[in-house]
């Protein structure tokens, strides 16, 4: 479900490459059918669509999406905090949904549309969520911030799409935005500087602007 697209229809950079989405998903292919001897290095070719641009890489099968982004494509906005899915600093948006890029292999994301912090906005053309984080001081050291912002953008999309959370009181009613909803949904993004309340304010402002 392209939640992000509903939210960001006016953003040209996210529209680029949107049509490449479904191309690879339906055709199962054997990338390397013959198991190599245990422990032997296995290289594979992978094509990734990141921020609307297609990239062809030859990588070790073990390469996580996070390492492919940072070490191969030099998109170092996504951060490696814990590398175990606990901190959320590596959060990126894939086909409109936020994902821990450290807990998925690059090769598993072929044909999907991957959006990183670099694809949300640029220094001269900030995403509304980036502007709101600056305005509300939603960070101190900034290390978790790219993950917080990617997560924050996707969370507003999830609420708009009516996806419930642990604190949604009535599962049969539409989900409404509240501080409690934002806090619960952002629990997979840790901020050791403790900017949480300012992050809630930033997200609330962006949600309000979207109406």
């Amino acid at each position: 479900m392209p939640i992000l697209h509903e939210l960001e229809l006016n953003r040209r950079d996210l529209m680029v490459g949107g049509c490449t989405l479904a191309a690879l998903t339906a055709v199962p292919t054997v990338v390397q059918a013959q198991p190599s001897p245990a422990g032997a290095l296995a290289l594979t070719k992978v094509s990734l669509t990141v921020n609307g641009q297609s990239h062809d890489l030859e990588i070790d099968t073990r390469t996580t999406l996070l390492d492919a982004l940072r070490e191969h494509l030099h998109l170092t906005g996504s951060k490696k905090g814990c590398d175990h899915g606990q901190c959320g600093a590596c959060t990126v948006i894939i086909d409109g949904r936020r994902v821990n890029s450290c807990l998925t292999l690059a090769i598993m994301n072929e044909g999907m549309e991957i959006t990183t912090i670099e694809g949300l906005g640029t220094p001269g053309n900030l995403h509304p969520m980036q502007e709101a984080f600056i305005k509300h001081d939603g960070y101190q050291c900034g290390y978790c911030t790219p993950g917080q912002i990617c997560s924050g953008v996707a969370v507003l999309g999830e609420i708009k799409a009516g996806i419930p959370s642990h604190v949604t009181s009535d599962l049969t009613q539409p989900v409404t935005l509240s501080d409690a909803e934002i806090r619960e949904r952002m629990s997979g993004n840790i901020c050791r500087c403790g900017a949480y309340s300012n992050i809630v304010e930033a997200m609330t402002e962006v949600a309000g602007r979207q109406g």
Partner: protein
Amino acid sequence: MRAFTYERAASPVQAAAAAAANPDAKFIAGGTNLLDLMKLEIETPTHLIDVNGLGLDTIEATSEGGLRVGALVRNTDLAADERVRRNYGVLSRAILAGASGQLRNRATTAGNLLQRTRCPYFYDTAQPCNKRQPGSGCSAIGGFSRQLGIVGTSEACIATNPSDMAVGLRVLDATVETMKPDATTRRIAIAEFHRLPGDTPHIETVLERGEFITAVTLPSPVGGKHLYRKVRDRASYAFALVSVAAVIQQDGTGRVAIGGVAHKPWRVEAAEAELPRGAKAASERLLDGAKPSHENAFKVTLVERTLGSVLEEARS
């Protein structure tokens, strides 16, 4: 992480056959638990079979009036499905009580059922663990056991099943559907799916080598109030100390399953006859034979009180 080769499965039966042909192969779907364990070299597959391209990602009505949930339906989608929210609220609630939004977006129905324990000694490769290395011993017994099991445990293992979703499925009497490498299918009641540790705690389910989960089915709705209460050290994004899944009818009868206490979702049908008499009577039957450690004896009281709170909410 150890090196591995990778293939994309073309069909469920091909996936099953590929897994059966290579004892060191693993299926990968969401990967949220498996890749974590591979980084720590607790799981060391030499070959991964990616099953994400197989479809199996829809929720369909069954002719019996229930739902058939494809193995690859993501946790977010299962919890958000309108029919699940309306008729199987305990399952939505259980899923939403677990993990984070990022993880639920990728984690699958089948993968959630197959996730491994979070026992700290299973994760610490410097320590003996019968589950990780059969026959090496159990460091948890006599060790740090606050999070661990109190009932159905063995001399070899006191680990708990970490899934919230499985507790919801257990109270709903779900069925796991599988395909074997020879293309035969089988239906496994959720009650039988997870094993108690016994002296083989490394064998966690009744699945045979290569056997591939294709779907989980829910029987027709049973009505009643659907509640899931999870008690944990943080308000969000933490594993359960104790959780209670309950479906309670207006007359006070109902069903309950408990998470965080055993190697599988813990349900004792005989204890449910005691529900109208209250939480104390029911939890005594539920935890009959429990052997808590000095560090997790509090869970016995916590089960009774959490169940009491759930029954009170059901009456309100």
